[in-house]
């Protein structure tokens, strides 16, 4: 059946409720809500969450926004914690300690700090062990919860509180880590990069596939942060659109090692369009700093081309 936003909204009541304290214009809550909408209404979910904005804004004792079972234990271990819950599920199911006809899905959420950096080992371990779970990284490109410090997901030249755009060093001098490809290197059944775009079709469909593909699956979702990126809160969806139309954040999925780019912009926009509305890149537009934009563009182009090549290579039919 073709995706229809209205039907999804009507048929699947939100499992992530209002009243949480995420900022206006934050990309993360809509990611949580939409990913969970992809869980079949008859299924139960156990959600694990890394310490970060999402956790501290959605579960402040004694209130919670999560209608499914939820566990947070620490920053770097959302994957390991969930892997234990999934192992208990398997053992208890096998012994008849849980109802036979009821299914539980296991979903972890972590920001880029908790996923690319401090949680990478725990994530890699859980993915390699093949637990039947989905790890969702909501990537806002810095440690936003502690006040916008650089992470390995922070784009090059971004101004953060630990890579300030100074007079000698103009922001972060390193490129971002490509986490989705690291996950592909784990030979998982399903890896995808997605975003809350337009009617959420891409995010919803990839979430559904990840949740209902057996084994360890990974979703990397760009989730802009108005405080860290410095855009107007009402412009969230526009920023998302620019991220994909400039090919800064390509949308693709890798199914059993085969790459499929799920969105190829009809007209690939120059990277300035994405950088311009964000205060963290303000210094790139100062006279004399054109080289930074040019360098940024070259890297985006190189990575986009690499993706196109990977798609072609992994789908080549044997002659």
């Amino acid at each position, binding site marked *: 059946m073709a995706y229809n936003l209205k039907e999804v909204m009507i048929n699947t009541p939100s499992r992530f409720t209002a009243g949480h304290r995420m900022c206006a214009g934050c990309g993360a809550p809509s990611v949580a809500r939409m990913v969970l909408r992809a869980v079949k209404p008859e299924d139960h979910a156990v959600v694990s969450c890394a310490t970060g904005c999402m956790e501290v804004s959605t579960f402040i004792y004694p209130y919670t926004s999560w209608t499914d*079972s939820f566990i947070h234990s620490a920053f770097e271990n959302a994957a390991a914690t969930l892997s234990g819950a999934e192992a208990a599920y398997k053992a208890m199911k096998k012994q008849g300690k849980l109802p036979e006809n009821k299914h539980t899905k296991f979903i972890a959420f972590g920001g880029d700090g908790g996923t690319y950096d401090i949680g990478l080992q725990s994530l890699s371990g859980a993915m390699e062990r093949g637990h039947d779970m989905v790890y969702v990284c909501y990537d806002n490109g810095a440690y936003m919860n502690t006040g916008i410090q650089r992470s390995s997901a922070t784009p090059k030249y971004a101004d953060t509180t630990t890579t300030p755009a100074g007079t000698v060093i103009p922001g972060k001098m390193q490129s971002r880590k490509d986490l989705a490809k690291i996950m592909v290197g784990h030979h998982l059944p399903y890896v995808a990069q997605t975003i809350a775009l337009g009617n959420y079709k891409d995010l919803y469909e990839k979430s559904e596939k990840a949740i209902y593909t057996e084994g360890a699956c990974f979703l990397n979702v760009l989730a802009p942060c108005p405080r860290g990126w410095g855009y107007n809160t009402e412009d969230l969806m526009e920023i998302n659109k620019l991220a994909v139309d400039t090919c800064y954040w390509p949308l693709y999925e890798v199914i059993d090692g085969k790459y499929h780019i799920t969105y190829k912009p009809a007209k690939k926009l120059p990277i300035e369009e994405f950088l311009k509305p964000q205060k963290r890149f303000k210094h790139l537009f100062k006279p004399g700093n054109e080289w930074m934009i040019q360098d940024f563009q070259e890297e985006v182009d190189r990575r986009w081309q690499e993706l196109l090549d990977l798609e072609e290579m992994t789908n080549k039919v044997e002659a």
Partner: protein
Amino acid sequence: MGIRERLSGNEAAAIAMKQINPDVVAAFPITPSTEIPQYFSTFVNNGQVDTEFVAVESEHSAMSACIGAQAAGGRAMTATSANGLSLMWEMIYIASSLRLPIVMSLVNRAVSGPLNIHNDHSDAMGVRDSGWIMLFSENNQEAYDNLIMAHRIAEHQDVLLPLMVCQDGFITSHSIENIELIEDDKVKAFVGKYEPKHYLLNDKEPIAVGPLDLQTYLFEHKAQQAQAMRNAKKVIADVSAEFAKLTGREYKFFEAYRLEDAEIAIVCMNSTAGTTKAVVNHLRDSGVKAGLLKIRMFRPFPAEEVAAALKHVKAVAVLDKADSLNGAGGALFEDVVSGMYVSKVQIPTVNYIYGIGGRDTTEKDITKVFEDLKDIASNGEVNNPYRYLGLKEEI
């Protein structure tokens, strides 16, 4: 009447785990506890248990997975030593604050650095105030028995705290000794089913675990944890009494060995108690009234009971197999003397740091301590309460 066997401490722990048949075991290899998950995974792969064995990539993930599994509604167990426990440290506190009755075998080893794989108690001492119940074991039999009792204690509704069973690395873990095992069906009946009130996998009552807990509530939650630790005393006494009925093996908070009429006494934990008993017997043969107080229940600490048991003694030596590097004395020493002080028991007491990094502690060393105690008892003076035993050179 039990099954007579010859097992190492690690084998004994693994067999206890097999008989307990937990839902999840998540563990990472580290000397000298490695054999426990090793033996256990053989039980898993040969279908002798229903357990999911999660071969995690670190001890931090081992404890994280145990937390996830126990919160999900399963019984979770693990084993580790030294740096493994250090890496778990963050999750050790979280496990107890989430009130998850996880059970761990801690095979005591020196914490780095420098690197050393042999026995002392610096690993256990590093988590002594983390909210875990801590039971110490003199030998393989006690390591086994304490594990069989562990879930009944930890899972009790008045407690709901994680529990670790300690035994000495190599000295106990790798030494094969006689042991009496309990029949599988009797263990199963004794341990019972795990029926948590609230758990993640109950789809009829979803729960949220591990909140952001701010100024309004955290204090009360920590006070509840502390109360649970106090409650554990009665539960440990009750479960141990029930265990004694089943096996004939009696366990108290501590073992008072020839202490009743003793004039000089040593307080220690784990395998050193065995050596001390031998020395006490020799001394008794020559008319010296020596005794031993062997701590089994280190957390909660039986402060009043220890003070009461020592009150008639003329001099006490507390042996710490971990130095506290605080300029004042070892952890067990401080617990014992503060317990005595609060109970108004004023006895000359001396602390010996010993056995660090696996340094052998022989009957000769223990005899030396008793010789010192005789002097202290006769003149009532402790010139240096913070001493070393078995150190090759004076510092």
